């Protein structure tokens, strides 16, 4: 206890109320796409600049085709909003995205932000209702493009915002460590934060039209729509149940079949949610699965109050200012992290079934931590096997045969041992990859230095042996060449490569040094098949340049490829001179390497 909202979300308490006021004002602004306000904080020399965006209640600015208006995010603008395995890019609501782009391109937003950052001010983006997603995107945009001198990352506060991004979106936010910068205030019954969980329908239009006339103040006391609650929350409930099945470890094989017959909203909560219970209390929740379950279950109907709840679901969207004023005054705050405590949840009015859902959400998080712990423990095993591999590589080099060639021949006992190690490691890493694909480790796993490092070492040391095994058995005849993305290449290497490229902010494919041998083998095969076509010549030249860069510049490839008897050197020396543009430099590398060994 004694925690304040500000402390829990890492922002000064004095910022929240004025931000909410500005967000309301900006939402209904007719002239400006956003409003700016400076807030001075007492007893602190830090000052904050709040930018709040205009909203829109036109159905076109919310919905459209496809039924959830879902679209892949533009990863040129938002390079981090993708999964680093095979789950693709984040999906977001295209209508809100379009509105954000208009603001970005046609207003002074960038200028205003740069100005504030230059003055070392903290920037807070905010939005009420449909302006919420605009604030989220603005925050992300400036997180992706942090100014070099920027100490304080931008923050985002929304009030009654609709859901905006899918599971990958939230995963990417958490992976980047940005999730805590986003705080969303939601009233217990407010319909708008739930509305995106239901496909667009006439009910949605009625709801938006009602709010539009409320905000426009042209009609006096417009009549709220009725009879929408069953449809809208019913669809939302379907999403929550689907996710609950997943959290609870449902093993019924019909789940996937049934899912393929029904259309579920792709959107999921992300960031920190603060639920206003309606009696002055605030409940802070960070676990995204718990947020979704609360979002659905706390708005469930009681015994006989259907019409009343329906009305409240409209009224509460309009009540943020007064409610927040009360709550922030009382500061009766409960954080849900660390598990649902029955007493604190009474305010949210959750049923026993809802409590089980919350418990499963918490347990799922625990499971993710356990998995990571297990992988950490397995790092010792990985180290032991990598140690054997390093020894194998050294011993082969002493015999003046690269370990790649030695492994391909499989003449020595050591080669057999290395094969066993290779399989042992493949088992451990395949297990890790499967866990990652199912999001069963904490979201920031792929950004943890310890895993990137050990993964990269594994990839550089062992992938050549997989390639050797592949070409030893001429598997290219069955599956095609071993390339960066191909049936032939095990996923584990591709994913680990992407971790490193993401970490170094390098383009996809720039860290392909572990594929060197595959390029060599495949070029050999293709030259035999096709002769020296232009395409082949280009590839040879590329291989030469890569070799020089990897060996000489960043040392990501080891010099054993340059041994006189290696497959590479023998093949390369046999190439006609006119096909070797970098001949001199590579000859020099080979000679230097031989000399170094001779000493």
């Amino acid at each position, binding site marked *: 206890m004694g925690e304040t909202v500000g402390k829990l979300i890492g922002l000064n308490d004095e910022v929240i109320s004025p931000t909410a006021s500005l967000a309301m004002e900006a939402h209904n602004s007719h002239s400006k796409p956003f409003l700016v306000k400076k807030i001075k904080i007492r007893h602190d020399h830090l000052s904050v600049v709040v930018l709040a965006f205009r909203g829109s209640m036109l159905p076109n600015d919310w919905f459209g085709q496809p039924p959830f208006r879902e679209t892949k995010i533009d990863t040129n603008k938002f390079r981090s909003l993708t999964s680093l395995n095979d789950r693709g890019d984040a999906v977001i609501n295209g209508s809100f995205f379009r509105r954000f782009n208009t603001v970005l391109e046609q207003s002074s937003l960038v200028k205003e932000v740069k100005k504030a950052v230059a003055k070392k001010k903290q920037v807070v983006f905010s939005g009420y209702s449909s302006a919420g997603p605009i604030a989220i995107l603005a925050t992300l945009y400036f997180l992706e493009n942090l100014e070099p001198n920027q100490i304080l990352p931008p923050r985002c506060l929304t009030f009654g915002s609709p859901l905006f991004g899918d599971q990958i979106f939230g995963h990417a936010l958490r992976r980047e460590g940005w999730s805590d910068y986003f705080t969303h205030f939601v009233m217990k019954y407010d319909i708008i934060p739930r509305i995106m969980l239901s496909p667009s329908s006439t009910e949605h239009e009625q709801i938006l039209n009602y709010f539009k006339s409320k905000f426009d103040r042209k009609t006096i006391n417009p009549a709220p729509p009725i009879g929408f*609650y*069953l449809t809208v*929350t*019913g*669809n939302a*409930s*379907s999403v929550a*149940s*689907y996710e*609950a*099945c997943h959290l*609870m*470890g*449902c*093993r*019924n*094989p*019909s789940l996937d*079949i*049934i899912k*393929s*017959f*029904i259309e*579920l909203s792709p959107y999921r909560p992300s960031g920190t949610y603060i639920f206003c219970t309606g009696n002055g209390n605030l409940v802070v929740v960070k676990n995204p699965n718990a947020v979704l379950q609360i979002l659905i*279950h706390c708005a*469930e*109907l*009681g*015994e006989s109050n259907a019409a009343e709840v329906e009305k409240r679901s409209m009224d509460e969207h309009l009540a943020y200012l007064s409610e927040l004023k009360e709550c922030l005054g009382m500061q009766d705050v409960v954080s849900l992290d660390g598990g649902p405590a029955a007493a604190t949840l009474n305010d949210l*009015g*959750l*049923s*026993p*079934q*809802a409590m*089980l*859902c919350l*418990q*499963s959400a918490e*347990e799922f998080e625990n*499971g993710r931590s*356990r998995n990571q712990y297990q992988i950490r423990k397995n790092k010792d095993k990985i180290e032991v096997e990598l140690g054997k591999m390093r020894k194998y590589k050294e011993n082969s080099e002493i015999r003046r045969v690269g370990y790649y060639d030695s492994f391909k021949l499989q003449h020595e*006992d050591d080669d*057999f*041992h290395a*094969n*066993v190690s290779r*399989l*042992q490691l*493949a*088992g*451990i890493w*395949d*297990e*890790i*990859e*499967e866990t990652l*694909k*199912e999001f*069963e480790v904490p979201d920031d796993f792929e950004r943890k230095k310890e895993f990137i490092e050990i993964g990269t070492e594994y990839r550089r040391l062992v992938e050549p042996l997989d390639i050797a095994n592949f070409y030893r058995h001429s598997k290219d005849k069955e599956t095609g060449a071993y390339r960066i993305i191909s049936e032939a290449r095990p996923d584990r290497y591709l994913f680990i490569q992407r971790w490193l490229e993401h970490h170094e902010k390098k383009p996809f494919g720039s860290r392909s040094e572990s594929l060197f041998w595959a390029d060599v083998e495949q070029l050999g095969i293709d030259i035999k098949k096709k002769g020296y076509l232009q395409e082949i010549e280009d590839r040879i030249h590329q291989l030469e340049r890569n070799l020089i860069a990897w060996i000489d510049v960043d040392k990501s490839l080891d010099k054993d490829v340059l041994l006189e008897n290696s497959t590479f050197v023998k093949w390369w020396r046999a190439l006609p001179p006119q096909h070797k543009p970098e001949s001199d430099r590579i000859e020099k590398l080979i000679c230097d390497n031989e000399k170094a060994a001779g000493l």
Partner: protein
Amino acid sequence: MERRMNQVPLFSSAGELANMVITSNLIDVALAKIFELQRGQAALPCSVQPMVYDPTPNEPNRTIVVFAPSPDSTQYPLPQGGDLVPYPDFDFLCTKECPSVSINGAALELFESLKNHLSVLKTELIARDGQLIITGHSLGGSVASLFTLYLLDSMNKKSKCRPICITFGSPLIGDFGLQHSQWNSFFLHVVSNKDPVPGLFLTSSHSQTTAYKPFGTYLLCSELGCACYDDSDLILKLLTVISSEVAGGLLQVVDYGEILRNLKKRAICKGRWLAVERFADPFSAGIVMELETIGIDWTKHNIDIRRMEAEARSLAMKTKAFDAKKLNDIKKYMALLEWYKKRSKDAGKGYYDCFKNGEFKRDIRIGEFMGHLNAYWEDMVAQAERKPQKEGASFRTSWLFAGTTYRRMVEPLDIAVFYKDGKRDYIKKARSQHYKLLEQWYEEAAKPTTREELDSKKQKVSVLLTEDSCFWAHLEEAILSCKSLTNANSTPELRESSGNDLVKFGEYVMEQIENYAVSPEIFLKDSSFMKWWGEYKAYITSPSNPCSSRFIEFIDFMKTGRYGVYGRSEVAA
């Protein structure tokens, strides 16, 4: 028992799955079409006429096929009772546990009467692209299920239609279980706790009560809510309870439309439930809550929650990550055996003899690797056997190659263990069923060897495994025969039969050699095979019977030492 305290808590998702189904519009769509058909149906001649609703502009990817019973058969379902009739046309559902298929007489009669029509319909539907909902009420649902099975059997990997079968208040249809088949995931059976029809054949008045087996997912519901189950035994139990509680209500017609409307409302209401405090662990709490929701008093009907938990726990183990690890472990054990084989070859003996004699220290670990490999492959074979024939076949093609390599590598070691103990007749007395099946499936899938393939085998024979995994069992028998032949105390009859067996063995070996089917490792200096030859060659002096040319060839092959160049590709070329 105290270990349970440290175990990861489990949850039961039966209620959430049902809620997801109810709040989506999937079953509304099916039910609406059933009602539509029933309203306009009086004029139809047949009582369960299927009706096809083609895709519409609103639902461009969805075809719905409805089997609705006439009003008459709704009120008096299945007057013939629960007789099960063997039906060979559905033998494609046979599994090891269910070697023949029987189907409820009434459902079968209807299905048969429509079969010509359904056969045309089936061909047409399989060619379609997109969702295919097959549905029906009561007896109509039974025929819908049969038709779906019939359709699934004809589908292949290229088929683009994605079927689901949804039945309402349908009786059980047969004695085959599909627990281990992917097919069961295509069936969703909606059953009200007020509906006597689904459990109709489970009351004691029917003699074949125990033969019926439910398959697929059952969505059981009461006025309070619903839950989904796919555990066949539990469903059978619950259906029995339901039918005993609505006894005598045969004339009651259950209105699934009304039930669905109520459930949809229930889904967004806070559930009333009182017993939470009684259970510390979430799994029991969930199960009990779900059972109470569907109107089942779990204490009264003796439902074993611990068994359900144990089952759920074992299922929770089977993750993709777990499988990936296991598969790589299996590859690792094979690599270790390969290494052992190479070491043995270098020692001039062959891995069969090294293992049998316990040559190296590490032989002890070989037994451990064998144990892992055998357990894995016995399980794979058992899984394939529990599936319906076609599904089992496609399941095993993906690993038959790896399974064959395993059989050729490991079965010789099992044979070594057997003969080391001084036993006789491995193939008849001790050969494990999974080896027999792996061999049988391989033979079924194998194509005749072409000239080129034989040439390439000739080049590679030194690295290949002996194809007949029972080669060493044949050799061990030949060694025993040789002893009988040379033993002075043997009766003349025994000697003669032993001599004949040895001739057969020689012919067999020569055939293997001609096909490059046997590894040259058998000719290693200290191998059992060469020892056998050393003893035998002294006794083949008097061919009393006219010998086959192949046997003569064999003797020549051995005596002239031609085996020395067998498998040396450079010499052969």
